[in-house]
């Protein structure tokens, strides 16, 4: 009896250590290459780390701890960088992500509904073609659209010239999509002027974004029972009444997580901005991530870059907490409905 009890105890002890054993490899590696760098980042964000400290790191004799100076410099636009204002970049970053999602989701839903129309000819061909933007890697999309918006040889200006030709204007079009500093619609977004480059990127990202939403919406449309529509039309509801009172509410549980995903993706859409505008003109299209990259790759102010990354992390955390709440709320809605 006593023996079995002690072996049981030993086994129990082994059992209680087992989870940690399973976690050990991953946490050992993450400890060195993920968590240590994260902590290191917080430490150097309080220093004046620059290129000259690269070799010795924290052991450099002339490395100084300067407290919150990097953070204060970022927030008060005291960095010796032209046209940089943290809050303008932050405003633009949020506006960029929100305006994208608000265009992609309705367009995706509308086109998915359109393709569901009974008896529509060539449906399969349309569906096969509309899915293509989802399949091309965003990095390639970014490079291709960069060339399309080229001032002299780009396809966009050539297309506009052809359209102009129809209306009796044979002149070639030379719109400087990425360089024009004057906002086409002044005062549209207070505090952060939207230059032509913003609209060019919106066009490119719209091409990339709506087909994904359309695929998600098509899947959700499939799960709506047809009886609902039949009952509604017996009751005399028109097509648009059916759309607003049946389709839209029943699509919501599927579309909100997709919209949240699209928001996060657009919020950190590094390649588009970096490839197409480089954050310009006059930093009007700079996102948090592209400015952080600029700090570390071109300016090589590692201390400031680390502080900026810590700020990005806090912004990302707040965004996550909000979006998580939105997704949860819709899940409850789904369960209740």
């Amino acid at each position: 009896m006593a023996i079995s009890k002690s072996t049981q105890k030993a086994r129990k002890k082994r059992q209680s250590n087992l989870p940690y054993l399973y976690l050990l490899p991953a946490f050992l590696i993450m400890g060195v290459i993920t968590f240590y760098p994260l902590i290191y980042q917080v430490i150097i964000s309080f220093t004046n780390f620059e290129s000259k400290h690269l070799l010795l790191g924290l052991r450099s004799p002339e490395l100084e701890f300067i407290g919150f100076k990097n953070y204060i410099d970022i927030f008060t636009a005291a960095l010796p960088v032209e046209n940089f204002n943290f809050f303008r970049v932050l405003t633009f970053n949020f506006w960029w992500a929100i305006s994208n999602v608000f265009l992609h989701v309705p367009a995706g839903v509308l086109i998915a509904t359109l393709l569901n129309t009974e008896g529509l000819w060539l449906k399969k061909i349309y569906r096969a073609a509309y899915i293509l933007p989802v399949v091309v890697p965003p990095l390639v999309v970014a490079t291709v659209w960069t060339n399309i918006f080229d001032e002299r040889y780009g396809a966009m200006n050539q297309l506009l010239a052809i359209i102009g030709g129809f209306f009796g204007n044979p002149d070639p079009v030379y719109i400087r999509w990425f360089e024009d500093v004057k906002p086409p619609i002044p005062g549209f977004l207070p505090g952060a002027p939207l230059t032509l480059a913003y609209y060019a990127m919106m066009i490119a990202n719209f091409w990339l974004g709506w087909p994904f939403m359309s695929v998600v919406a098509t899947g959700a449309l499939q799960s709506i029972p047809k009886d609902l529509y039949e009952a509604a039309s017996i009751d005399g509801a028109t097509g648009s009444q059916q759309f607003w009172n049946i389709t839209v509410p029943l699509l919501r549980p599927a579309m909100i997580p997709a919209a949240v995903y699209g928001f996060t993706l657009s919020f950190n859409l590094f390649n588009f901005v970096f490839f197409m505008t480089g954050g310009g003109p006059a930093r009007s299209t700079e996102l948090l991530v592209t400015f952080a990259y600029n700090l570390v790759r071109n300016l090589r102010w590692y201390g400031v870059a680390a502080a900026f990354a810590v700020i990005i992390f806090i912004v990302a955390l707040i965004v996550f907490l909000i979006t998580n709440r939105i997704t949860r709320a819709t899940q409850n809605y789904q369960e209740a409905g």
Partner: protein
Amino acid sequence: MATMTSEKNKNPIVRFLNMNTSRQTSGRSLPLWRQILLQVICLAVLASVMFPIMYIVTLSFSSKTTRPSQLELIPKEISFVAYQQVLDKPTGNPVTFNQLLKNSFVLSMGVGIVALMVAVSAAYAFSRFKFKLREVLMVLVFIPLLMPAVGLSTPLYLLLNQVQVKQCADKSIVIQPIAKCEDGKGKLQFNLRDSLWGVGIAMTATALPFAVWNLKGYLDTIPKELEEAAAIDGANVNQTFWQIVIPLAMPQLAVTFFLGFIGHWQEFVLTWLFLSQPEDYTLAMTLYNMTGQYANSVPWNRFAAMAVIVALPVAVVYIALQRQIVGGLTTGSVKG
């Protein structure tokens, strides 16, 4: 019933194409004026979708090395000159296309495999065991996922840059930071930061927590009955893990691997920051080098051919995995 299940098992692209989700009751045909109106809208959307694709495909089949002075969306000629030139000499540097291809594949595959192998046991622990620090450790794994790749690049750059192999004045080889030359200098032989190894480590730093999180989400959905049956039959936890859970999780391991592949194939932030030797460049970096203001001497037909080549592997993987990708995102189990 049987048709329903077979419908479910089909590739989602096939399902997407065949889907009948119409809200009209069947049998009623569309009035002609409506058909024409909808066709016009569909064709307009089709034109906008095909515009950049046809543009780049047409360019890539062109043999003209001058920049396009007129819009061409339908190939006038099918010439593979541009493809051949890209394959022969992709950049101005003496680096072959095969080298670039190899670098891209080694990085994206290597990071994916290492991350998965290390992550799977941790994911299992989070999914099946109850232990004291479970919540704390799970939050810890989630923290790096919130950080965009750019956010971790600074400390990784600085730390990896401190690992250097140097040849001292007296011909001895030292590895910093473990040892140093006596005069404090020395000829640089190898800088971990400026190598594919370093980039691989940096990419694993974020790929690993993602793999743990993603696999944990999947393991949660595997029913526990099989494991419980194995335990009754006297299998211990290790045996259950290796002989039951791993084989069951194989499909999801493959999906996680390919999801990672799609991302790693396009990795640009870290490679562009870390690597300076042309022989270490990846395809994604080369494509960027051929774009816009950085590529005044690159003919656009070559750029177009390169764009098509870089896009192909991802397109193939994406089409094969459509169901898992879209399904995973909409259930909210996968974080991007």
